[in-house]
């Protein structure tokens, strides 16, 4: 009895240490930044532009990820096609790849000297050191989150529901739109929000592909390396608040975990 009591106390202490390790720096950063400094930082047009660019590019990357990722997720969930495991493994690659490596790989694939880069340039799309580069980097690192979440969500919808809908007169698209998508909606939305959050926090791939114009994470790194810690802290605190807001949204849309 006494042994169990000590075990519980030990486990509680270890858990508390971990929680402190995560909460400590966050709280420290928020406390460190004085409200007046936060206001001043918010007035900085460069920071505001960086935050706006981050939110815009992350949204664009998420929408492109949904457009391209949902058909693939549906195929992975429903169709036992040859090479499915290879595709799944490929989708895991951006998650395990160091992000600067992803940035270099994208540079080699989408740069102006490459065939793909030339085709894109022909269509008027400049990637490297342009906004499409930021979107490409964000898409690369975040789209697996959409595909995995959507695939699991589609898999959880019984295919016989779609078959009933088709026997009631729906074509394939109508059955998907009216039955599968609404039922998988929460899972898809969770994946989209996670991907959006991942895009907002991306740094390693973006900094290689598109240093300028600066997204918030690159701007922050720039402030820290050029002007030191005090100059970076208010901007960091603002980005932290944005991240906390995103976390709140994620918690709101994600299916409830059992208590």
């Amino acid at each position, binding site marked *: 009895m006494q042994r169990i009591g000590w075990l519980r106390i030990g486990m509680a202490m270890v858990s508390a240490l971990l929680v402190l390790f995560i909460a400590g720096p966050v709280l420290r950063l928020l406390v460190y930044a004085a409200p007046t400094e936060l206001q001043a930082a918010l007035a900085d047009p460069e920071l505001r532009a960086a935050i706006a660019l981050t939110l815009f590019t992350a949204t664009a990357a998420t929408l492109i990820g949904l457009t391209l990722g949902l058909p693939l997720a549906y195929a992975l969930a429903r169709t036992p096609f040859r090479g499915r495991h290879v595709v799944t493994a490929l989708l895991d690659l951006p998650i395990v790849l160091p992000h600067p490596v992803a940035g270099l790989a994208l540079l080699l694939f989408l740069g102006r000297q490459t065939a793909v880069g030339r085709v894109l340039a022909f269509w008027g799309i400049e990637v490297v050191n342009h906004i499409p580069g930021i979107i490409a980097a964000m898409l690369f690192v975040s789209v697996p989150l959409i595909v995995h979440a959507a695939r699991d969500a589609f898999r959880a919808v*019984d295919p*016989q*529901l779609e*078959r*009933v*809908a*088709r*026997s*009631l*007169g*729906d*074509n394939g698209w109508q059955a998907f739109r009216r*039955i599968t998508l*609404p*039922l998988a909606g929460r899972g898809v939305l969770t994946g989209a929000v996670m991907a959006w959050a991942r895009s907002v926090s991306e740094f390693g791939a973006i900094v290689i592909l598109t240093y300028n114009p600066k997204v918030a994470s690159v701007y922050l790194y720039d402030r820290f390396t050029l002007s030191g810690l005090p100059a970076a802290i208010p901007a960091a605190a603002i980005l932290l608040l944005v991240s906390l807001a995103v976390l709140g949204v994620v918690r709101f849309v994600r299916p409830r975990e059992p208590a």
Partner: protein
Amino acid sequence: MIRLEGVGVHLPQFALREINFVVPARGHGLIIGPTGSGKTTLLEMIAGHLPLASGRIFLRGHDVAGIAPEARRVGIVYQHYHLFPHYTVRENIWYGLTGPGRGRPVGPAHARIADLADRLGIGHLLDRTVTGLSGGEQQRIALARALAPAPDILLLDEPFSAVDPTTRRAVRAVLQSIHEQEPITILQVTHDFEDALRWGDVVAILHEGTVAQAGRPDDVFRYPNSPEVARFVGTGNLLAGVIQRREAADPEMALTFPALFRVGRLVLELVADREGPAHIILRPEDLVVGRAPHLGSARNRFGATIVRRETVGPITYLHVDAGEPLTAAITTTTADEMQYRTGEVVQLAIKATAIHII
């Protein structure tokens, strides 16, 4: 009309081959097979959800190869109903009537939903969500949803297997009345023989991936064409033995002759059309039971010991040992009046012409 010609499918779990079966227009056909024998797959192929490996499917006389499910005008009710969980009961039924849209259905859609809900006794559920409904309620809603667009072909996948007997009887009666009033051809897959006996115009028995026997339910159940079908439908006492001719063949009656069937120490007289190893069926209700030897015209009379009594409502089954284990069926009233007891020796009789040779 539904016609299956040489239909086949190959899946990892099972294979169906050479399925031939015809359900006449406005008829009710049943395909009976054990669980996991591919019955649901067969229905999904007819509805157009799965591709055929071989053969052809004709609906209303037309080959439906390449026709999309939504163009086949076939209603389907699955064993587990598969109601749309994000719609209300009304919206589920409305779905096949170009709904659900905003607000409530109007005009013909409203009238159809109200009529079906009334006939199936689910009017009070229309504004509810489908979660938390009983199996019987879900079953009736699924049926209403499938019937709403007035399909002339309805596929039923074990529709009564997950509900209690009272609900089963009630819904069966409603479906039967709808079937009488609307021009629907029904194909039902089931493992329940009662459905076939009460309902079916035609029945097919699936065995080892193909149709072992098809025909009118009464014929299939009374005269199974193989020991496998006999075992599967549980027709009665199935005995494996040898037929021996008793008299020389009469040239005028060359097709049949009096014969003896021997199995162990049991020897039975019958009318045969062949000699050698064979199976025979003694239907439990054809076995006459008494304390004294039977005085009628039955050619076969023998003693047997009652091993067990089993009463199922008005019928009592006497499981006896006559050298071979046999079962005789008598009314429970007779069983009670005669006070048959386990261990008692009784006299059995059966006419030679009542023995069915497989």
